[in-house]
């Protein structure tokens, strides 16, 4: 440990591992450490032994769940948007060669007490119980408008200015009902609350286009998922880093973030050893007041409640789908934030056969978080085992340019990885001093 590094990375969550991989490819000398003896940090996937060790200290996993090694239970519920930014990074870095992906079988939305498939084709839209006959016509016009939109062709704008008019204006122009707005804004644009309605329409437009183009890519849902769980993603990027010379140390306690008299980063102390580096990047858990390093460098920016539920049946009303996302828009259950359900199963090699793992989550609004996810839990049917966590979402208090200490964000409540990639771009820019450019890679033709 007496070498000096360009960058020390603390925590092997997905954000840190992507950064570590990209920095190593760029030629930086990287030391990557984690206090845990497994990869993934908060975005790990755990086997049964690890899962029970984390949530039920004095209890062994029940024998009714099958083999320990068959399990890879995600700690955070997220799916990959097929045409999204994470997919671009996966393809660009070629880590896809370590991973296999499967589709998520369906995307559902809760409306008026029942769940329905989010229509993915015109046929499905026509048959969808989400809208009445006249509403379907209006929705069709709305989607045609979005699809045909060309910035440079004002004839396609129908008098709308995406950068000035609000989404409310757009909804009103097409006369869409509030319930339809709910499923478009929450199940397609994937907004967690209704703040977007009163803002300029362009971001919502882009999100809906991303959803529909992702949907078009594989057909069943806009999401894909790595076999063996989300924990494979950080592992794949860690391997990329290692292949380009990155050094990996797991199970390594971090005792101190060492700074000089000006508060600038010097190194990281573990036990009696201190490793020096020019910069440090780490997840918030290494920089909070409760962390080993002592000094508080992050602020609490709200909380997320997540219930990992083990089921012995598919979720009712989803045509026995092996995997689904269900969104309960906030208005439907008189909340300010949506409730999400993400389900995967043995099809994705994350649990034993005939077991389903569903995670119900939302942003905490009250002092009784578990009650807030009750509408989601009720959709699951009998729950065999349930692990509930309430976690703070931390954000760094400084951008790191002054002290060379760069802190990533906690995993938020969104149902996908787009904000994780935003954070990667953001940290990269601060660490490297220029934008992260993913050059277009030559695509291997495998017909």
């Amino acid at each position, binding site marked *: 440990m007496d070498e000096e590094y360009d960058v020390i990375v603390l925590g092997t969550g997905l954000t840190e591992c992507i950064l570590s991989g990209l920095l190593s490819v760029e030629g930086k000398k990287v030391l990557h450490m984690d206090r845990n003896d*497994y*990869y993934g940090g908060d975005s790990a996937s755990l086997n049964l032994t690890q899962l029970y060790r984390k949530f039920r200290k004095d209890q062994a996993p029940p024998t009714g769940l099958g083999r320990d090694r068959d399990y890879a239970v995600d700690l955070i519920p997220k799916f990959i948007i*097929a*045409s999204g930014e994470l*997919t671009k990074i*996966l*393809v660009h870095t*070629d880590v*896809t*060669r*370590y*991973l*296999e*992906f*499967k*589709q998520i079988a369906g995307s559902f939305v809760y409306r008026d007490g029942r769940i329905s498939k989010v229509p993915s084709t015109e046929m499905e839209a026509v048959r969808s119980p989400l809208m009445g006959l006249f509403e379907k016509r209006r929705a069709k016009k709305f989607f045609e408008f979005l699809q045909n939109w060309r910035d440079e062709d004002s004839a396609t704008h129908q008098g709308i200015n995406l950068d000035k008019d609000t989404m409310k204006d757009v909804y009103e122009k097409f006369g869409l009902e509030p319930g339809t707005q709910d499923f478009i804004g929450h199940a397609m644009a994937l907004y967690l609350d209704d703040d977007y309605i009163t803002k300029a329409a362009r971001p919502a437009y882009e999100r809906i286009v991303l959803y529909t*183009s992702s949907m*078009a*890519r*594989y057909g069943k849902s806009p999401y*894909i998922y790595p*076999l*063996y769980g989300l924990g*494979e993603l950080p*592992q*794949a990027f*860690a*391997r990329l880093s*290692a*292949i*380009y*010379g*990155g*050094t*990996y*140390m*797991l*199970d*390594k306690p971090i005792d101190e973030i060492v700074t000089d008299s000006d508060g600038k980063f010097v190194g990281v102390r573990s036990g009696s050893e201190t490793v020096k580096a020019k910069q440090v990047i780490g997840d918030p858990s290494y920089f909070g007041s409760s962390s080993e390093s002592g000094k508080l460098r992050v602020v609490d920016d709200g909380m997320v409640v997540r219930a990992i539920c083990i089921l012995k049946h598919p979720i009712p009303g989803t045509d026995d789908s092996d995997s689904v996302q269900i969104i309960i828009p906030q208005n439907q259950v008189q909340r300010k934030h949506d409730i999400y359900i993400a389900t995967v199963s043995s099809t994705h090699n994350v649990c034993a056969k005939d077991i389903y793992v569903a995670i119900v989550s939302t942003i905490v609004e009250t002092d009784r978080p578990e009650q807030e996810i009750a509408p989601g839990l009720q959709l699951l049917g009998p729950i065999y085992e349930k692990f509930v966590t309430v976690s703070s979402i931390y954000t760094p208090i400084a951008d790191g340019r002054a002290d060379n200490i760069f802190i990533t964000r906690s995993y938020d409540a969104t149902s996908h990885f787009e904000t994780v990639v935003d954070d990667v771009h953001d940290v990269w820019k601060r660490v490297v001093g220029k934008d992260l450019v993913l050059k277009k890679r030559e*695509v*291997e*033709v*495998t017909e």
Partner: protein
Amino acid sequence: MSKQFQFKLVLLGESAVGKSSLVLRFVKDQFDDYRESTIGAAFLTQTVNLEDGTTVKFEIWDTAGQERYKSLAPMYYRNANCAVVVYDITQSASLEKARNWIRELQRQADPSIVIALCGNKSDLAVRRQVSQEEAQKYAQEEGLMWAETSAKTGDGVADIFTRIAKKLPTMAPPASRSGPGRAGTSAGRTGVDLNKQQRSITSGDQCNC
């Protein structure tokens, strides 16, 4: 038509026992005295043609240095069909480390994995610290294949990979024709291929224009 198989092979062993050199000799028939630690290759492939016309393609995963601080990811062991665990015959401690790796494999890898224990640097026999008898006895007890090799001279290298190749296909279930491993090509994949889809989305865009 001749049968073709593809298998994932993982390398294990202490740092500096010659894991990468062994593969370099096997794949490219080269040796470099002052080889730096592994850098830059996701994995290498090499094909072995057996006498009965069977072709075995190895997809060889190097540790990329992640073994140094015991930080190999579960992904590394996943779906490995065979493992070559390397020790250095001039370092008795490296055999102890090899035993640890074999225990780790027995814990983490598929139970049907074929394991070969490989005593490398046989060209340095004058400095030998691990006797052939000791290593062979241990290999027999654990049901492992065993050989001594020299990545430097090439002695025994092709032979051990051929022996592994011979042992593999007969043990593999028929379904794993192309191996359950994540091949570098899309052959053998059952899920969605992101690279391929990237292409079709591009052509899709063109249609819209």
